[in-house]
């Protein structure tokens, strides 16, 4: 064969082979990859900007831990299996069994996986932004976006540290294929606090002011918190919340004065109004939690146990209830001056005095019902915590959207009160606690000087409609609120300044934000014995890392000791 012919044949073969390979190269035109997602500055900004929304959606998703956090904390009760509400809330507590294949850690894994991925996505976007030459078009925009990025990662890592005993130690600048090692919750929280520190530092820069207000969609349309000052209050509130909430035991919550001082300072510079996000509809902000857990007509969901709520009772019924064996308890009528409860001497009257709330601040927060609930004797009552019903109603009856309480001012106020007590500023704490007590017809604590001072009862002046028109504090009177169990768990006594703070915080944060009661109760030593104080890293993640899974709680490690109330 001549050279020219050979060359032609070889060329033909080469072209054919190349053509074959080209033919076999097909793009995926259905789903984007990371390169496409972050191809433009707008996309980077979008990812960071939607970061807190992701945090919200992660925490409020039905398949996350929220349902069971409600039942293990005594905030709610349910006997049904859905979302592990029943199994986790049962007494005695059982371990969070985490062997390979255990279905019971589904919610735990869902939460961890979403949180973990969110952190990496936000870091990827932040790294793109901070890469040399990376800009969104203006210094102000760059700074506010960076600040918000650090805030998002900080909040996300803060939640992981709060919930799990370990999590991935993510950091800025990680290679995309790097798997960050697991670290203990203390190290994870340190990263979270550092991230929030960065957010505060960047957002505080003078040049950052030009970038504010940030787009309202970043913070669920909260105009207040889209401003520079509002955002800084948000950052400091979350930092205070996490610094205090990371403690697993009362001993751990006995932080050094320096830490409590920092918490106090952050709380003092914290929220001045509730941080409410606009959820549902087409906002992209989940309403699931609101839809299924905040309030349910169904008898199996979101029942209100009297285990902790009963502390409001002033008639002795709560005491009798506690003295009855667990399985033989029957619900009792709570009669209390506290207007967050329905007034009335009988169940029927209380039902009549249980109007539907118009918004989350309407009282009573709690509604009595003529329908009996179903479940364990100690678990059910004929009360429902309906403060959040107004929000739920708007989803299912109204425009399918509304406001969700991410973090309310009362939580930060009462955290400040706790910090002041811890720092021996009891009068300062009482001033805060009294804001809530006086607004709820509970006598002032003014004059008490120690954390363990017993709170007074009161003489009330009641009008013909049963409304309280006057009140005089009476030390030693039995109608004190709260009336708390003794450490034996079968008797009660008048609460202390410390207990008054806890009562107010419970009443004001019930059924509101993620795991609120569980986080506080573990740090205050108030959980039911053997309740898990943290979740193990679910077996799915341990399997992916080729590490052996382990279980916690229910008598194993990370189980709450029998605590303040002897539960």
């Amino acid at each position, binding site marked *: 064969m001549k050279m020219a012919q050979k060359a032609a044949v070889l060329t033909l073969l080469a072209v054919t082979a190349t053509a074959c390979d080209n033919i076999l190269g*097909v793009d995926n035109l259905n789903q984007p990859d990371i390169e496409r997602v972050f191809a433009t500055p707008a996309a980077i900004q979008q990812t960071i900007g939607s970061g807190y929304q992701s945090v919200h959606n992660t925490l409020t998703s039905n398949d996350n831990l929220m349902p069971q956090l409600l039942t293990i904390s005594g905030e709610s009760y349910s006997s049904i299996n859905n979302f592990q509400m029943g199994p986790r809330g049962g007494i005695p507590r059982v371990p969070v069994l985490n062997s390979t294949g255990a279905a019971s850690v589904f919610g735990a894994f869902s939460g961890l996986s979403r949180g973990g991925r969110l952190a990496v996505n936000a870091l990827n976007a932040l790294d793109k932004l901070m890469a040399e030459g990376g800009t969104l078009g203006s210094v102000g925009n760059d700074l506010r976006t960076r600040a918000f990025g650090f805030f998002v990662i900080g909040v996300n890592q803060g939640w992981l540290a709060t919930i799990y005993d370990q999590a991935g130690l993510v950091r800025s600048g990680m290679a995309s294929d790097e798997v960050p090692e697991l670290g203990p919750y203390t190290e994870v929280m340190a990263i979270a606090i550092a991230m929030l520190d960065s957010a505060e530092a960047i957002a505080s820069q003078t040049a950052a002011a030009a970038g504010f207000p940030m787009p309202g969609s970043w913070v669920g349309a909260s105009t207040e918190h889209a401003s520079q000052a509002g955002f800084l209050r948000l950052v400091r509130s979350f930092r205070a919340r996490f610094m205090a909430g990371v403690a697993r035991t009362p001993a751990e919550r006995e932080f050094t004065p320096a830490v409590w001082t920092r918490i106090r300072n952050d709380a003092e510079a914290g929220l001045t109004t509730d941080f409410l996000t606009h959820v549902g509809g087409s906002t992209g902000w989940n309403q699931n939690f609101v839809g299924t857990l905040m309030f349910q007509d169904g008898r199996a969901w979101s029942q209100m146990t009297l285990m902790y709520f009963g502390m409001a009772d002033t008639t002795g019924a709560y005491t009798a209830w506690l003295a009855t064996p667990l399985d033989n308890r029957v619900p009792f009528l709570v009669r209390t001056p506290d207007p967050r409860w329905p007034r009335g001497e009988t169940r029927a009257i209380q039902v009549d005095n249980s109007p539907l709330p118009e918004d989350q601040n309407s009282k009573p927060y709690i509604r009595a019902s003529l329908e009996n609930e179903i479940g364990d004797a100690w678990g059910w009552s004929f009360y429902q915590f309906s403060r959040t019903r107004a929000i739920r109603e708007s989803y299912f009856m109204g425009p399918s959207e509304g406001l969700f309480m991410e973090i309310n001012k009362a939580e930060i106020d009462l955290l400040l009160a706790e910090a002041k007590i811890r720092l021996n500023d009891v009068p300062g704490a009482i001033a805060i606690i009294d804001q809530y007590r006086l607004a709820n017809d509970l006598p002032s604590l003014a004059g008490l000087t120690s954390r363990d001072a017993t709170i007074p009862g009161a003489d009330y002046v009641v009008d013909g409609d049963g409304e309280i028109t006057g009140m005089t504090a009476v030390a030693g009177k039995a109608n004190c609120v709260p009336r708390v169990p003794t450490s034996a768990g079968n008797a009660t006594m008048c609460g202390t300044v410390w207990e008054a703070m806890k009562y107010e915080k419970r009443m004001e944060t019930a059924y509101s934000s993620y795991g609120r009661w569980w986080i506080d109760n573990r740090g205050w030593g108030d959980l039911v014995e053997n309740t898990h104080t943290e979740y193990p890293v679910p077996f799915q993640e341990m399997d992916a890392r080729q590490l052996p899974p382990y279980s916690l709680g229910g008598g194993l490690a990370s189980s709450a000791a029998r605590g303040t109330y002897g539960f």
Partner: protein
Amino acid sequence: MSSVRGWSASLLAFALLCVTAATVSAQGAAISGQVTTEQGAALDLVNVHITEMNISVVTDDQGRYSITIPAERVRGQGVVLRVRRIGYTAQTRPIVISAGTQSHDFSLRADVNRLSEIVVTGVSAGTEKAKVPFAVTTLSADDLPAPSANALTQLQARVPGAQIVMPSGRPGVAPAIVIRGPKSLNANGRSQGPLIIVDGVILDGGTQDLNPLDIESIEIVKGAAGSSIYGSRAGSGVIQITTRSGRNAAPGVRFNVRNEMGFSNLQGRYPYSRNTMLMFDETGRNVCVTVSNQPACSRVVDFEAEALRINEQGGDFALQPLPFTQDYGISATPPRPHLKGLFQINKWPTYYDPVEAAATAGLYNTANVDMSGRFGNTGFFASVSHLSEEGSIAYLKGAQRMSGRVNLDHQIGEHWNLALNTYYARRLTFQDGQFFRLTRTPPSVNLLRRDAQGRLFIRSNPLNQGGQNFNPLYWHEAQEQESHSDRYLGSATARYTPLDWLEFQGQASIDRSRDNFWTLRDRGFRHTSQSSVNEGAMFTGAGSDLSFNLGAMGTARREIGNDLRTALNVRYTYEQQDSESISASGASIAVPGLRDLDNTTTSFNVGSGTSSIRAIGASVGGDLEYKDRYIFQTVYRYDGSSLFGENERWHPYYRASFAWRVAEEPFWPFVDAVNELKLRTSIGTAGGRPSFAAQYETVSVGAGGVITGANLGNRDLKPEVTTETEIGLDAEILGRFGVDLTYAHAITRDQIFLVPQSVSTGFANRWLNAGTLDGKTWELALNLPLITRRDVSWNSRISWDRTRTYITELGVPEFFQTSSSSTFKFAEGELLGTIYGKTFMTQCSQLPAAFRNQCGPGQEFQQNDEGWLVWVGAGNTPGQGITDNLWQSVRPGCIVGGVPNTSIIGEVACLDAGGVVNNPWGSPEVHWGMLMPIRDSTGAAQLLAVGNTLPDYRLAFSHTVQYKRLSAFALIDRSHGNKLMNQELHWSLGDFMVEEQDQGGKTVATAKPLGYYWRAARPENSNGVGGFYDVLGSNNHTVEDGSYTKIRELSLTYDVGSVPVVGFGDWSLTLTGRNLYTWTKFKGWDPEVGTSGGNLNSSALNAVAGFQYPPRRTFTFTVNTRF
């Protein structure tokens, strides 16, 4: 000069020869004759051909054939005249093509074992079955005397090694097929089924569109040992369907008209309870209503009157029913005292079997007209068909299919042949049934009842715990749902045979389908919940798939000497599959009665997708055949696919096969007894491709720009490779009895597996190659022509197979996965298809060691009347629960030093003061008479193997009996040892609606309280009570024995022949029954069900009775005539 003279003489002689030859050949040649059976009956449709001259004709009704050869092709050449017909042994006769006429008659012997059939699937070139060195099953239309609605359903029980399961009885549903066991650990987005080829068209969709009556033959190659030539799509085997064509048509036109009409209904029953725990007044009709602070039964209401009230007075909604006392179920947990003290003994005031109410005898009708024939060099086959299946459920429309086919075969000159196959089908399917609701309707509910406005009840069930349910029949009647599918299959094949030994072939095939669907719940569609807005909703969507494959092939055959035949085959193929889909939905319909999405005003939702798959394959194959008895074949194929990762685009496949026809050896001493004995072995590889998106990094962007990492992507993703080694023998004994025995060992490596990633990577999963499946299959087929006389014949066929597939390597930590309530374990050494679940104890040996000596008659633990091990306390018996009020007893949890300690987990810590273990499981209590799950050392109920979805073996018998004009066919098959998750029953257990929960007929000693059947939410702690209902988790009660024996087909045909009154046609009448009767212990409708999804993604493997349309039985009458 002499040389000149010599040349002149030669030229003269040549001229004379030419003149002479021209004179002779000018007369042409005519060859004719008759072909009959050995018994002398004329045989039509016999193919008579002369391969060397590309001449092929077919015998007529009288078995006669005629070949006319034009003068210019008559050269006195020697050729071979061959006659061949499916079902008969082919014959050849050397002849000389010379001018004038010659006659050759043939008498064909029935080829009962089909040894002379030509197999084209898996081989380089058409090969007689007797010489194929791997297992292949061939079926012709004669083997399928009762064609069903689906082309592949009729293969059930006819192909050893092939598990063919109808996942539901819904009209228009295609079967799930798994051949020789699963090949993929994770078939998500893919299939466990074989590659299906129809007339060269590689199918890209289901087989629902095919008209079974068009089929001439089906060949099934069962695994990689025979399918290597198809490369990376053929690891699960290949089914090749050939439709009728004009290739073998006789001159003229013949018509065949067939009409089959009948009905289908449901077999079996659903075991509804006849009793309830609801509280009634003394009339037994009025159910008690709970009123706060009032005594029990202070208010009562008629159960059916309440149903009417909530349906009639609610306007567009059903009202909330009154709260009935003891209205317990999944959503209304019975309190523990009731679980242990309440018995389901109150008779429902009325008993309507909801399934009986919903069942109808729906029309089954198929009309088919076809014609075939030949004009000159062009043969043709054309058919039109209409199938209508109404199904068996009230208000459901079933499915319809209209199809048309034209197949042409045209001979062009001596060397060219052109074949065109075109097929179009339009299929309509309507909504599936609401079987979840149907099975969970209490028996006292009349689903057919209408209110004063003539409306079916929307909430026929007034129980509060049934609030999530609606009347399935209302839904059937009021919801409109329709799906249209247009399918076109076409192929063109050009064959060029320039030389006797050389052939080229080119083929282009296309599979084009368009689907669209819409669902309309019109404005005013009623709801059971008043919190819903009943302004209606509409969903619509469309899909378009275009799949085409191009192929070119060259085959050279040479004989070397007298004994060695060789063949060399080279192929090139290109495949492309393009898919697009779009869907949209909206709610709040503005004006009722319209089907325009613009008519919706809220809740808009859209979706779409697109994908393209491309593949190239090149192969070379060589065949050697020595002395007709040593056969050696090889194939090498190189495949490239866009589905493979970027760094792994190309992969090779091969096959090497050898067959030895022992009975052809001169030394074979048993030639009279065993006239054919072929020993064969083959080793081959074939593949399984990844799904479209597996190789790509994917991120989803949700509302508000929220991104979620989904798949990490893998550039190194490879296809699964199945290496199958097959050995077997095919024998024919006494010239009649056929035996095929095959053992196949398939190892599938590089499993394409979705591996969870650490959450800290930002991605959920990654598709990796990890793991190996090892499957072993035994197959046996017996063909027993027991009687073969002219007027009487009886032929029996038996097939048996057994497959076991193990995970031998996993590559990732073992894990469980639940698919439709069946929980499977993925671990090394695991038998695939094994269901895991809680295991309630039945034997003393299952107790913790410390307690086994307390088990037995008179002891603490005893077997109850149902065989379950329960705690009754020493000295008691399981029958004393009521008489001695023992159902309330609880064996305490862990006791330490005489004090219960609820925090102790595990038996080792549970020691009393004497060091004796006092509780088997630590803190969990044991409740009197209740079921006890086997627990692990932490006290948690263990997940243990409770059965396997794959049968121990499958066995099928078919009988064809003919007496003169009457013929009968029966097909009976058995599946043995397979387990089935009965999700339907399980769910109903949760609502106390199952027959076994009835205590009405039981004695005081055998009656069980609610908790025995129902399980409180927490079996792992002290509050756990009972029971079989296990929140849909599988356990050794709800995973049932799925073994069955089934009369699958029964038909009786009378060959009427000509009917003088009609004046034309050859008539026959057939009575057919399909899926007639099932013997089984399974408590549901039919054990032959399944759901897709999960890792195994095959109805044949998942084996879950999960609210599918129940399998139907069909009775039909067929009139057939041909003329």
